[in-house]
């Protein structure tokens, strides 16, 4: 193709939008190939583009339509939203942040995000705790022991105070809870998914009150790994700071002399 032919094509096709131009890819490819090697025609094409870009400017000159004054603020706000959604570029070193409204808005947004994450995490934890508690109750319902009525009075009461027990072993999913009620001396301790105690050892339950541990009983474990201890404290609604279920020889009087199975701390 000659330069003349190319310029005729450019003049004919320059005003056709991209979608229409794409309908004739062979011609467009030929034009592009020529422009890549012919500086004069490339400059000619750029001049055309500049001319066409001026057409809306000319329309703006003759039009009485005015740009809404509020629009700039909207556009700038959308930039803020975009910037907030994009990851920050790494900075070299650190400097005291200057006081400006944007910074504090960003900090506020970050705090809000952290609070939402914390709330979400807390809700997940609460949900998990509630489901575990339901599982413990279901286990207990199967036992139907003489202690059932006492246990339900404490466990099912809205006044119940709970201390959560988590597995102290990385390879175990054992868990449990210590329930007390402010207006009753009954203390109910439940645990589930417990491994069967090794030969020669039992699970002794230790509770700390006023900084002092007491061994409150040996927790029997059924074949499903469920254990229960119910006893009456010397006062209504005792508050225990810590609770330990320890695998140790029966009669051991030291909570630290053994393997912690589940543990909780207020």
């Amino acid at each position: 193709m000659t330069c003349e032919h190319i310029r005729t094509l450019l003049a004919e096709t320059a005003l056709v939008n991209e979608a229409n131009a794409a309908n004739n890819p062979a011609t467009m490819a030929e034009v592009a190939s020529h422009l890549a090697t012919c500086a004069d025609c490339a400059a000619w094409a750029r001049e055309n583009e500049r001319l066409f870009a001026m057409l809306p400017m000319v329309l703006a000159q003759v039009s009485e339509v005015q740009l809404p004054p509020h629009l700039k603020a909207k556009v700038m706000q959308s930039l803020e939203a975009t910037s907030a959604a994009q990851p920050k570029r790494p900075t070299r070193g650190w400097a005291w942040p200057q006081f400006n409204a944007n910074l504090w808005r960003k900090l506020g947004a970050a705090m809000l995000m952290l609070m939402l994450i914390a709330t979400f995490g807390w809700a997940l934890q609460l949900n998990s705790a509630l489901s575990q508690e339901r599982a413990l109750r279901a286990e207990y319902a199967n036992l139907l022991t003489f202690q059932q009525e006492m246990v339900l009075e404490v466990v099912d009461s809205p006044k119940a105070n709970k201390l959560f027990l988590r597995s102290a072993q990385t390879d175990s999913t054992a868990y449990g809870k210590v329930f007390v009620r402010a207006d009753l001396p009954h203390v109910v301790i439940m645990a589930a998914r417990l491994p069967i105690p090794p030969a020669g050892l039992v699970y002794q339950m230790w509770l700390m009150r006023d900084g002092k541990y007491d061994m409150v009983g040996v927790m029997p474990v059924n074949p499903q790994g469920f254990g229960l201890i119910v006893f009456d404290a010397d006062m209504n609604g005792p508050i225990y700071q810590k609770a330990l279920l320890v695998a140790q020889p029966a009669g051991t009087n030291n909570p630290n002399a053994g393997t912690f199975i589940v543990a909780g701390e207020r």
Partner: protein
Amino acid sequence: MIDSPPDSDDALALRVAKRDKLAFSMLYDRYARAVYVFAAHLLDPNEAEEVVQDVFLRLWNKAGQFDSAKGVFGAWLMQIARNRVMDALQKRNKQYRQEVLDEVDELLAQIPDESNIEQMSWERQQQHALQLALAQLPEDQRRAIVLAYFGGMSHTEISNSLALPLGTVKKRIALGVSKLRKALQHINPLATTPEKASDAKEKE
């Protein structure tokens, strides 16, 4: 190599690519009205606001893609605006498109005021020259250019719309564009490349 002036479009676009809001604001002030008017005449005021937001958000996010070696900033930005407006315009029916394009054609047919040309900036003088050239174009050539640029119509669509042979449509557009180029060349002869002999032979 000559550096661009600090407030040139190219320099500002470079700063926008580095997330400079002041530079963005300056480019907005230069081009937002043209984008808005373009969209408002072809669509409606509400959609025109959306177009302005979309176009300038794209500028904010894609300024790094602008290459001054390949063309001027205004052409790059207006191409973004035109693509956005054409997409929306294609969804309107044929009668609507005819009506809005008639209005644009009428506006561009107005002879501009000749006073105070000497006080105008070079850019404004160029726009004035282009406005005058558009107004002085034969009606059929201006109409073909308006349908193609502002209507986003293909040559075949223009041919059908004006009930003219395809070759005639192409010739009208080519002649019209050539005249507009000459009008700008008159304002700034150094900015344009020499026209070929074929251009000089063009007749209306």
